[in-house]
């Protein structure tokens, strides 16, 4: 049997997918290293300020530069687009959002030196959380922060709030509770309001308004942040051009007017929008309307030295951080790449002293950015070196010039026009440096690479097509693999080599990802060159289409936990309906039925209907283990998700504990019963012994761990030490046993008990060693075998699994037995990582998988796994992702899993990531490893019906009968078909999995859907886990195949 080509082919296809995914992700994910350094008051970047006359007396509590304001009031109005704050457009229909924030315009017009309106440019992605990060760290956003904290959202980088708190200022916050997760324990006082229900326009705003004025008047704050969400939510719910929006903006206007009245002289008022919104009220992308927010600064003391320009200036969002920091007299956060808004720093005096003040600010700012760039380029290499060098040149020349100028001014202090011109040039130089530094950073961090995204998408699509085409190919044994595997592989390798050489010749850096995807593309072309076919569509594809189509809509992605079971139930119902329609369930029409014009079901058909009912019940019950998403506030997470330790009621706790243990026992008993039923629980093979003794032991360990973990902490008083030991020891015992068991299954997977009957002399001849040599051989062997079989039946032993090798118990289900054992072991491991009560969900998972397999076995076609089986299997995998209490969002990850068997410390991130990953993708793992069962089960289920009839048969009919229930040994008879079927199964699975990737990736190409990045990350990770586990499952089957071959040859030798 050509085993390796199958595995190699599947691995190749998986790699094609992986290359596509990698390429897509590299074009899509924004990555940036986070630096741990923090600015400190005592260490200003560059040379400190000297005792120059224009600096005046340094006020108390100032760092780096004298502060201008004692306190600041930051009013963040979410999604405040620029034109909401601007005057109504002269032309065109007046919109509901126009001209409602009148107070800003009045202030700017009446007191041009006190207040000014800016265009505030947000960086994409314009999601609120990323914007809050940008507004406080002064840096560009990332989706996955390299080196960020493992278990929480909290901002680890240096930021404005941390600087303020560090320098003894009081920060008070009210509004959006996203800030709570981002800045835990940072606020002097805080009023958080839930932000997730975007339908709710008023809770947050009214909550803020209740506390805002009294807090402002109370004066116990240095920075007060009020984050209003009503405008954003109104946009999401009604869109910007709606009467509700007008109301909301008028409310904001009223609030601002009241605030301005209460503003102290030493207070700076900043009104800002974190992003804009599109005409439909969405945000997240980088369209003009989304990035164009409003910024308004105002104070009762004059802010500006000059009158405002005609057209409002454009201020990048990161500029607010250094500006606020220096105005408030705290250090600029370490990683900030913003440029100060210099006009806010020059108020009094003539033009020269104003320019000198601005120069001071720029000097500090440029030094800080330079310091950051230096430390950043030490940590990560993603900023291009030559551009850094250029920046360095601009910087050093500007600093030199600055030093000269300062010396010059200190000596003579003239105010000639020539000096003014020099000052102006120097200001321009600093400005250029800061802007270019920001541009360089933006170019290398915050940029989607559309080409890569498109190429990645195309690669995934081509891989899907390849799977589809290849799974429909008729498999000719040898030449097939040579032409459809070897040739593309060689082409791909050649292409990779060529590109590598080209890069080496051109002296360019070699991007591994580009090379691998290039190779993947070339090998695909080579495949399609040879095997181009347009396969027909099968009917279950419709369901898959719905599944993929559901991802196009945000609401369906949110409701996926309900959509997937619905589709699964529909698919199965459709299958049964189709079988019925085709008349495959009814008794073939005899003359009598025709007479009565009626038909009735066969017995097996009723069996099938019961199975469907059981499946629907499973689907129904599994909904009890749901987790909630943040978008649906009325949803309550299932009570099964909380660990037992949190339960107050001792009685309920005990009852639940008993239920969990019962589930565990039921799992072990069911598996053992099934194995015994198949005859795989006889003899003393190591794997069999493990099932007999190891499984109960595992169950005991898990139960003990649960008992210890769920017992109340205080009740055990003295035994505290012991409990701590037990908390570590039991999980490790389970890890060890599971590991040992898996190794055992891998090394000795044969669970066949060959009963050596001494009465018969000579070797046992089995017809499974290839083709039976002659008819005579057969005729000689069969009656003998049958006699022995009857003996064994008489002696009340378990039935011989396969007919011909009479005494070989369990030979007919040797493949599936190994898989079932491995799956059970994995289930124990995963159970341990979940909270106790989810064991019920796992029991349900096994039950549903079992029912699905049986349904599939009833409606079977031998040697080929139909599409509906694959799709329903993978739908069940998705369903149990949700039904084991998961959701594809970060807050729903079960972080506790990282600490099962560990006290609260990990030396590396690898182990906890593995544990949490195993927890998150538990159902993916189980269903993917169990995938080959889809192929095996129809053969396993072949036995019982024929078995019963067998007892009544005449010996003469034996030959026919023997052939009929060879079960999985049929697969050995036709090794080519076996391997082809395995390949087909794997390809179909990969196709179904890949389609979901493709749709999600395609979705992400649409600009404003960037907010689904996290969903995509989960899906991509799930895909990788699934494909690896699928390969492992198939590998296990092949390993069993090898072992069975060895077993047969040993048997022959005897």
């Amino acid at each position, binding site marked *: 049997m050509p085993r390796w080509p199958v595995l190699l082919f599947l691995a190749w296809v998986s790699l094609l997918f992986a290359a596509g995914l990698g390429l897509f992700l590299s074009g899509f994910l924004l990555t940036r290293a986070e630096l741990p350094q923090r600015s400190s008051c005592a260490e200003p970047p560059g040379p400190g300020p000297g005792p120059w006359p224009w600096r005046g007396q340094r006020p108390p509590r100032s760092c780096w530069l004298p502060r201008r304001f004692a306190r600041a009031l930051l009013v963040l109005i979410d999604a405040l687009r620029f034109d909401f704050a601007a005057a109504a457009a002269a032309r065109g229909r007046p919109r509901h959002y126009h001209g409602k924030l009148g107070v800003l315009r009045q202030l700017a017009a009446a007191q041009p030196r006190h207040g000014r309106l800016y265009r505030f440019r947000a960086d994409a992605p314009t999601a609120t959380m990323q914007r809050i990060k940008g507004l406080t760290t002064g840096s560009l956003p990332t989706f996955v922060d390299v080196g960020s904290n493992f278990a929480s959202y909290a901002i680890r980088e240096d930021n404005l709030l941390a600087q303020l708190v560090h320098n003894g200022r009081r920060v008070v916050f009210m509004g959006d509770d996203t800030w709570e997760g981002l800045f835990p324990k940072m606020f002097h006082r805080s009023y958080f309001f839930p932000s997730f229900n975007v339908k709710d326009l008023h809770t947050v705003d009214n909550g803020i308004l209740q506390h805002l004025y009294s807090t402002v008047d109370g004066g116990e704050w240095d920075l007060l942040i009020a984050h209003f969400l009503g405008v954003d939510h109104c946009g999401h719910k009604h869109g910007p051009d709606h009467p509700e929006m007008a109301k909301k903006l008028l409310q904001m206007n009223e609030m601002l007017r009241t605030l301005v009245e209460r503003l102290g002289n030493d207070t700076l008022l900043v009104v800002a929008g974190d992003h804009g919104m599109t005409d439909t009220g969405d945000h997240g992308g980088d369209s003009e309307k989304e990035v164009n927010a409003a910024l308004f600064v105002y104070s009762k003391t004059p802010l500006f030295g000059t009158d405002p320009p005609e057209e409002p200036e454009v201020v990048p969002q990161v500029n607010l951080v250094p500006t606020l920091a220096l105005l408030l007299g705290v250090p600029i956060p370490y990683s900030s790449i913003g440029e100060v808004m210099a006009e806010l720093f020059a108020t009094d005096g003539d033009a020269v002293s104003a320019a000198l003040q601005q120069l001071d600010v720029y000097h500090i700012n440029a030094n800080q950015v330079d310091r950051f760039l230096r430390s950043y380029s030490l940590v990560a290499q993603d900023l291009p070196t030559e551009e850094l060098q250029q920046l360095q040149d601009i910087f050093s020349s500007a600093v030199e010039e600055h030093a000269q100028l300062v010396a010059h001014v200190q000596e003579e202090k003239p105010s000639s026009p020539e000096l003014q011109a020099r000052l102006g040039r120097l200001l321009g130089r600093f400005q250029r440096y800061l802007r270019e530094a920001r541009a360089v950073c933006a170019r290398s961090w915050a940029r989607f690479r559309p080409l890569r995204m498109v190429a990645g998408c195309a690669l995934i699509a081509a891989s899907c097509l390849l799977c589809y085409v290849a799974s429909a190919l008729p498999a000719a044994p040898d030449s097939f693999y040579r032409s459809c595997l070897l040739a593309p592989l060689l082409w791909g390798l050649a292409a990779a080599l060529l590109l590598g050489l080209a890069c080496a010749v051109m002296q360019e850096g070699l991007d591994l990802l580009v090379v691998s995807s290039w190779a993947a593309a070339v090998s695909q072309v080579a495949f399609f060159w040879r095997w181009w076919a347009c396969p027909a569509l099968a009917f279950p594809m419709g369901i898959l289409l719905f599944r993929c189509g559901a991802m196009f809509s*945000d609401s*369906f992605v949110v409701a996926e936990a309900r959509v997937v079971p619905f589709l699964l139930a529909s698919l199965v119902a459709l299958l049964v309906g189709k079988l019925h329609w085709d008349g495959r369930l009814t008794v073939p029409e005899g003359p009598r039925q025709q007479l009565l014009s009626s038909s009735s079901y066969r017995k097996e058909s009723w069996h099938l209907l019961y199975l469907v009912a059981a499946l629907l019940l499973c689907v129904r019950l599994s909904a009890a283990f749901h987790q909630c998403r943040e978008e649906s506030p009325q949803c309550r997470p299932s009570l099964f998700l909380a660990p037992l330790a949190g339960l107050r009621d001792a009685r309920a706790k005990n009852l639940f504990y008993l239920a969990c243990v019962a589930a565990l026992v039921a799992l072990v008993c069911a598996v053992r019963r099934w194995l015994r039923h198949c005859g795989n629980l006889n003899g003393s093979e190591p794997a069999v012994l493990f099932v007999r003794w190891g499984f109960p032991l595992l169950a005991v360990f898990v139960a003990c761990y649960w008992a210890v973990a769920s017992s109340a902490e205080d009740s055990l008083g003295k035994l505290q030490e012991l409990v701590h030991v037990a908390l570590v020891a039991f999980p490790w015992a389970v890890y060890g046993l599971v590991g040992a068991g898996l190794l055992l299954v891998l090394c000795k997977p044969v669970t066949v008990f060959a009963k050596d009957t001494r009465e018969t002399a000579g070797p046992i001849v089995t017809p499974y060693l290839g083709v039976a040599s002659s008819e005579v051989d057969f005729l000689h062997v069969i009656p003998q075998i049958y006699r022995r079989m009857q003996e064994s039946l008489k002696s009340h032993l378990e039935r011989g699994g396969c007919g011909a090798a009479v005494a070989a118990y369990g030979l007919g289900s040797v493949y599936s037995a190994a898989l079932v054992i491995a799956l059970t072991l994995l289930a124990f491991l995963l159970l341990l990582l979940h909270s106790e009560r989810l064991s019920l969900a796992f029991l349900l998972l096994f039950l549903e998988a079992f029912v699905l397999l049986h349904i599939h076995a009833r409606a079977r076609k031998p040697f080929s796994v139909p599409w509906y089986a694959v799709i329903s299997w993978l739908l069940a995998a998705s369903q149990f992702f949700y039904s084991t209490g998961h959701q594809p969002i970060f807050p729903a990850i079960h972080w506790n899993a990282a600490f099962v068997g560990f006290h609260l410390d990990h030396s590396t991130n690898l182990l906890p990531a593995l544990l949490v990953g195993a927890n998150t993708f538990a159902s993916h793992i189980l269903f993917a490893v169990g995938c080959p069962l889809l192929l095996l089960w129809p053969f396993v289920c072949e036995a019982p019906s024929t078995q019963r009839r067998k007892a009544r048969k005449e010996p003469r009919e034996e030959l026919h009968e023997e052939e009929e229930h060879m079960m999985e040994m049929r697969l050995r008879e036709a090794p080519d078909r076996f391997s082809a079927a395995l390949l087909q199964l794997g390809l179909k699975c990969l196709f179904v999995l890949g389609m979901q990737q493709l749709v999600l990736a395609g979705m992400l190409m649409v600009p404003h859907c960037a907010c689904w990045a996290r969903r995509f990350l989960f899906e991509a990770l799930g895909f990788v886990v699934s494909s690896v586990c699928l390969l492992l499952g198939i590998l296990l089957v092949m390993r069993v195949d090898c072992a069975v071959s060895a077993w047969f040859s040993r048997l022959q030798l005897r």
Partner: protein
Amino acid sequence: MSEAGVRRLCAANLLRGCSVLLAATAPRFFLDGFSVLGTPLTWLCACSVSVSALSVVLNAALGPSPPPRRGSLAHKVGFLKCCMYFLMSFGRAFLSLNTFLFAVLLSTFTTLQCLCVLGPNIQAWIRVFSKNGAMSIWDNNLQITTVCSVLGAWFGAFPIPLDWDRPWQVWPISCSLGATFGYLAGLIIAPLWIHWNRKQLTYKSR
């Protein structure tokens, strides 16, 4: 297959369709503030009652299958069986009033029609819903309307998770609407389909 039979079928379907439409409009004259979307439960009741009443009347009047003799034991047993099937087809519907009413509606469109045409004969039911099982245009009509109603209800489930915030996006209103539209579509499609395929349709005689 006779022209008259087809004509009778068309008339019956027309009547059924009218009863559905009537159920959606007529109660407005008796009840204040009635509308399909505003008071969906009332509408569900009205629709089920009118369609089922019409079905029973039609069955008695047109009688595609000869009704069993009144008062006979067979008839009584049959009636009991009918009730049982009718209730069974509700499934797990007793959980809430909404679901119950939806189940009543759906079974009015499907099970009740089957009962009227085929009687409480499970073998006949199984026979009709298989590939070559239809034995008259009434059977074909039954197949098409039933499948259309179920499909309509199935598709009706799709708008539920969408966040449009429309009043009809609530379980089971969208499904009921879907089922109703499906039923109406089935009533139209069935005669057309029969007309279209009249050459191919050759029914086995009983």
